């Protein structure tokens, strides 16, 4: 990222400042590129990487020869048309694809340099390091408190920490505490859709994972609720690495530092700084996709 990061985000909505933009900043639509200037300095470590990764469902190839290095403490967005394999890639990282009997994987997918598909990697252990937030909010039919405490309990950490304190911290981290602090004993299903999704984020961060995978986390939400989740992602990335699949290109442009563009056939066409993808992509197909000529 170069100098085109001067636009700031105030809490709530993204505002693009017209003053102070350098000449090479192109704002064709309302898209304001680059979430936060503080994250763009320095060179981050790679936390998740794929090397010639193929994923098949039966005989169908969902991902084809994907090679990528995802940086730590950044928001990386995966965009592309439906069926392009971006969700498959996300589910491969925490091995949730293992739940689909016909899925199998070739090539390497590494977390902190260790291939997660090695024989000695237990997917249960892996998922304790890599949290996930799903497309539709899926809180457990339990109380709000028990939802957040769930991860700590199943991971055997509930006795080591002050559970009340941990639940409060997670709910504050998900910007939900003030709304639910008086109703922790009520069912998580009684919350609104946006609150449920933030509850799911609280559930994911309660166990302090290193990476949080988000699979179109705002697609089932109204714009106001979606905006709150986007603000939250901006804060989460200070402590966690966020990898987010989205259908919404404006969203990818607003919140991500890096963007990976998948196209039909499970091919990773381009992966670069978000600004570059949206302003000056190398691949014509990416430009066509971004500008709406394709997909």
């Amino acid at each position, binding site marked *: 990222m170069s100098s085109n990061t001067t636009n700031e985000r105030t809490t709530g909505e993204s505002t693009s400042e017209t003053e102070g933009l350098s000449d090479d900043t192109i704002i064709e639509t309302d898209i304001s590129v680059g979430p936060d200037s503080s994250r763009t300095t320095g060179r981050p470590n790679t936390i998740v990487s794929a090397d010639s990764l193929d994923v098949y469902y039966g005989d169908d190839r969902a991902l084809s020869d994907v090679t990528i290095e995802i940086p730590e403490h950044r928001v990386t967005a995966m965009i592309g048309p439906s069926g392009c394999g971006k969700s498959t890639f996300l589910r491969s990282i925490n091995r*949730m694809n293992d739940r689909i009997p016909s899925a199998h994987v070739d090539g390497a997918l590494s977390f902190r340099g260790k291939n997660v598909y090695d024989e000695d990697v237990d997917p249960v252990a892996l998922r304790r390091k890599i949290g996930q937030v799903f497309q539709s909010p899926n809180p457990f039919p339990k109380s709000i408190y028990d939802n957040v405490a769930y991860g700590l309990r199943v991971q055997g950490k509930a006795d080591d920490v002050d559970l009340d304190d941990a639940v409060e911290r997670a709910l504050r981290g998900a910007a939900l505490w003030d709304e639910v602090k008086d109703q922790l004993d009520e069912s998580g299903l009684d919350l609104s859709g946006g609150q449920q999704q933030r509850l799911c984020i609280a559930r994911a961060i309660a166990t302090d994972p290193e990476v949080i995978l988000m699979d179109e986390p705002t697609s089932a939400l109204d714009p106001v609720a979606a905006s709150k989740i986007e603000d939250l992602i901006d804060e989460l990335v200070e402590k966690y690495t966020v990898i987010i699949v989205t259908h919404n290109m404006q969203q990818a442009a607003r919140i991500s530092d890096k963007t990976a563009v998948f196209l039909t056939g499970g091919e990773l066409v381009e992966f670069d700084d978000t600004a570059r993808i949206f302003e000056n992509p190398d691949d014509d197909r990416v430009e066509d996709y971004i500008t709406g000529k394709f997909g």
Partner: protein
Amino acid sequence: MSTKRESNFLADVDLTREKLVNRLFYGTLVVASVFGLVMLVLLIADVLWEATQALSTFDIDIGNFLTGTSSSRAEQAGFGASILASLWLMALTAVLAFFIAVGCAVYLVEYAPENRTTRLIEANLANLAGVPSIVYGLLVLALIVNDAGLGSVILAGAIALALLIVPIIIVATIESIRAVPSSVRDGSYAMGATKWQTIRRVVLPQAMPGILTGTILALARAIGETAPLIMVGTMLHATRYPSGPLSSFSAMPTQIYNWTYQADRMFNGLAALGIVVLLLFLVAMYALAGYLRNRYETDDGSISNV
């Protein structure tokens, strides 16, 4: 003006015949539905009529009837020992059947590989639920009562009833477990939960109202079963209170059955009263099942299919 034009416009459409067919079909459906209801009302009315007749014809002491033991002398016979035997049977049957059935259902849904054997087992569970109950009675008579030498005791009866209702509970449990949305399971697995943790903490709690409803309805069937208990062997008159699972017994339905073919007409009256007591037990169990279903249905729709 305009209405006239419209009526002219529709004049060539004749719906008389279609409407007649509609009403005929509607009438058939109503008659079919009312038939079941009428039969139920007739049944209950008959039972109550017989019971009141018995009360007025014979000098039956309700207190003694509900608490006493049966006797070869009709004036002293009571139903209490049979009620207690039925309660013992229900408790033992519930314990034996519940854990076997739920364990089997969890295995079939969550663990068993998806292959032909699994499908074959699942398909045959429905067949097993349709096996005549007397067959289970014969099986227990041969294996448990005679071969194992347990004798004609409550435990043997409970085993026969448990065998009878295990397939029913398994089918209900499978339905309830399948109704737990996969998104919730995914949520649990993604938190780093193991399979067992997911089943115990998420799947079973959400499926439990449906499982319990299915179990209670199956027990309601078992409490009225007569044939398997006759096969296992019951006392002609329950003259002693059962002291435990290894007592000989005569449960409510078998005692009623035995009373009906006694020469003394007063025994027939006692049987009529006994049927009222048995029906009250059934109503209570159905009410409990209905309560469970309504109580949890608002939280999730997972048990509406039971």
